[in-house]
């Protein structure tokens, strides 16, 4: 079952990768980017999960119980921050490009540019 989970994650990863590469629409590209990163985050979270473990918070009530590995969660959090900022920046650029070219299709943009040059 565990492996199935990882296989799913890998499929999601590849899906995102594929969308990012193959789609010529910038927004779709960015969505693909997010899908790909979500797969990685899922992977990290799944990795740190301990069966029937509790949240890794130190209180006096649960001193020695099995708890979920907190490190991957921390990593995921950091990763999310990074991915949000990349997404925001990419969206900002997309908006600007749309303003200039009137389209979000990369092929189209390249065609217009080569026409202008």
């Amino acid at each position, binding site marked *: 079952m565990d492996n199935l989970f990882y296989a799913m994650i890998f499929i999601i990863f590849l899906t995102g990768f594929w969308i990012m590469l193959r789609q010529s629409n910038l927004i779709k590209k960015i969505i693909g980017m997010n899908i790909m990163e979500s797969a990685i985050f899922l992977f990290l979270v799944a990795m740190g999960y301990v069966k029937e473990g509790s*949240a890794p*918070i*130190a*209180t*006096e009530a649960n001193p020695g119980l099995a708890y979920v590995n907190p490190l991957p969660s921390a990593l995921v*959090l950091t990763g*999310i*921050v990074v991915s*949000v*900022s990349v997404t*925001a*920046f990419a*969206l*900002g*650029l997309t*908006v*600007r490009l749309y303003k200039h070219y009137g389209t979000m299709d990369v092929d189209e943009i390249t065609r217009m540019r080569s026409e202008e040059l």
Partner: protein
Amino acid sequence: MSDIIVRVVTRLMIPYLQLYGLYIILYGHNSPGGGFAGGTVIASSLILYVLAFGIDDEDLRLSPSVARIIESCGALAYVGIGLGGILLGANFLSNKAAGFPLGIPGRVFSGGTIVLLTVSIGLKVASTMITLFTNIAEKEGEDES
């Protein structure tokens, strides 16, 4: 965007959203949550406002310049707390080693500098989200990132 239901619900939601965000920030070291999550919630409340009332509404909008100042202050505060560790004779970002009181687990003021760090992160994240959103949403973006 002139739907009355959205406006009313938004008006009702915003205080609770912000309170919730604040809670998540302040209890970041005791329960799931933290500066990033809380900051995002707070920012989302403001974004919701903008979505409901339009970007041109000047009443409640956090202006980008103020947001930028808060953003910088949040980051600088984080670094400042980190440097506090050095000033107190331990390593950068050290907590207990630098002599910060740990307090009683479960309280708000426990875990040494962690509360302060989450607060500064919360400030930074909330303001950054808003800046990013306004940058994308505005008609003539002045600058990006």
